[in-house]
């Protein structure tokens, strides 16, 4: 019963989010502000994680697959494919669930507990539409871009590590990467990125928006938001893989 209560309330929040804005320009400004905060604010951590993800995956591939009868170019192929299909979209989304998800939940939770959301409502502003809408739009546009950044940095990281440690050369890595590259894999990665972006923004916003209480509850909502986002990302990852691959 509890699940249906929360799911129904979540759907009602999404419905309210789609109402016509009171002032389009103010909503657009808020969306741009959120895009900047979510997108630019996460590039550093996404690139850092991706470079090491690519590097480690290259080293481990070499460790597991080196044999006289296996071509070294396979390292480039495996690092590239795993970056596009899994590491880029899924691991990046899990990292972003922690960073952006907790940020959204705690921001909205604090606004709720300090009566700022009530103040908006009494002014005649639809608080769901004004506070949640721009965050969802910003995530839907910026997270796919962050995933593309992550995929690129992961491949680059693998390539650089291979070259620096003398495992294989740039040319061998690129040859392997190109040999098995499919544009459909990028489409699949983008489908995952958009789906996960929606989970991260809407689920976190739901938990933050419905906080009741003070600082302790805001903290709890933030933790819950991250946990639910991670579970949904992993579940969605499996379902999308089954459906699209």
């Amino acid at each position: 019963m509890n699940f249906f209560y929360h799911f129904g309330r979540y759907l009602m929040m999404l419905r309210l989010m789609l109402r016509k804005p009171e002032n389009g320009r103010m909503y657009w400004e808020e969306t741009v502000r959120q895009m900047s905060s979510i997108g630019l604010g996460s590039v550093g951590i996404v690139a850092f994680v991706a470079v090491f993800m690519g590097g480690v995956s290259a080293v481990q591939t070499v460790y597991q697959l080196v044999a006289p009868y296996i071509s070294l170019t396979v390292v480039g192929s495996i690092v590239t494919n795993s970056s596009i299909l899994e590491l880029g979209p899924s691991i990046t989304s899990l990292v972003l669930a922690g960073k952006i998800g907790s940020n959204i939940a705690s921001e909205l939770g604090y606004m709720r507990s300090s009566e700022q959301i009530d103040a908006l409502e009494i002014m005649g502003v639809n608080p769901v539409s004004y506070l949640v809408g721009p965050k969802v739009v910003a995530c839907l546009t910026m997270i796919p871009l962050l995933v593309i950044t992550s995929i690129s940095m992961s491949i680059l990281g693998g390539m650089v590590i291979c070259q620096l440690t003398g495992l294989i050369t740039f040319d061998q890595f690129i040859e392997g990467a190109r040999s098995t590259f499919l544009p459909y894999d990028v489409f699949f990665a983008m489908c995952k990125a958009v789906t996960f972006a929606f989970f991260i923004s809407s689920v976190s916003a739901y938990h933050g928006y419905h906080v009741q209480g003070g600082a302790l509850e805001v903290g709890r909502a933030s933790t819950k938001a991250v946990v639910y986002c991670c579970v949904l990302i992993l579940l969605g990852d499996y379902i999308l893989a089954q459906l699209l691959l």
Partner: protein
Amino acid sequence: MISLQGISKKFGDKSVLDDIHATFLPGKVNMVIGASGSGKSVLMKTMVGLVKPDAGRLFYKDLELGEMDGDQRNELRQKIGMLFQSAALFDSLTVLDNLLFPLRMFRPASKAAMQERVAYCLERVGLAGTEMLFPSELSGGMKKRVGIARAIVLEPQFLFCDEPNSGLDPKTSIRIDHLIQDITNEYQITTIVNTHDMNSVLECGDHIVFLYKGRKTWEGDRQLILKSDNEPLNELVYATRFLQQFRQKSG
């Protein structure tokens, strides 16, 4: 004018408001008083539409709140100003942006015209020159005054103040009370103040409604409140031993 007719509200089995009837007139500081937990805040939230009553009708002039559609309700809300207990200023915005927010959202005009209106409102509450400060840089009393400035920036017809004196020293409290009283008289708006601060009540309570355990048990003004024979009300008015002794001596 705001009129309440038989407003009732329950949370679970607990009755928080029970058959409240009252009329709040414009140009007067209407006060809802009562001990903590008496239902004042729920009544105020019901009046501004944040809480839906289980029974009863609530009229703004001739329009019933429960029968308004979304557009009518939004239109009404632009005529409502509210000062929250915590002031509820937007932390990430400066004082200037806090006041510009409702103007830009609902009455966009030239930048100069909007800034002129903001400057007037800040001047009105005695906070000229604080435009570029953030809420975290303001004292409790200043936050309340910025809250009042934001509440009046759209020239409301109804002003709600939830515990405007909480956490303030007596001098600042009286200053806030006078500000609310002056604004009410100047704009002839319907002002409703939730409080249990007896200094405020005796200073500017033109019309007082006393709530006790969710029921309205007394109604009057600041002259009558000192002569009331309502025991729960007297326990609130003469809360200190000093005042109780004073009351006994003066008969």
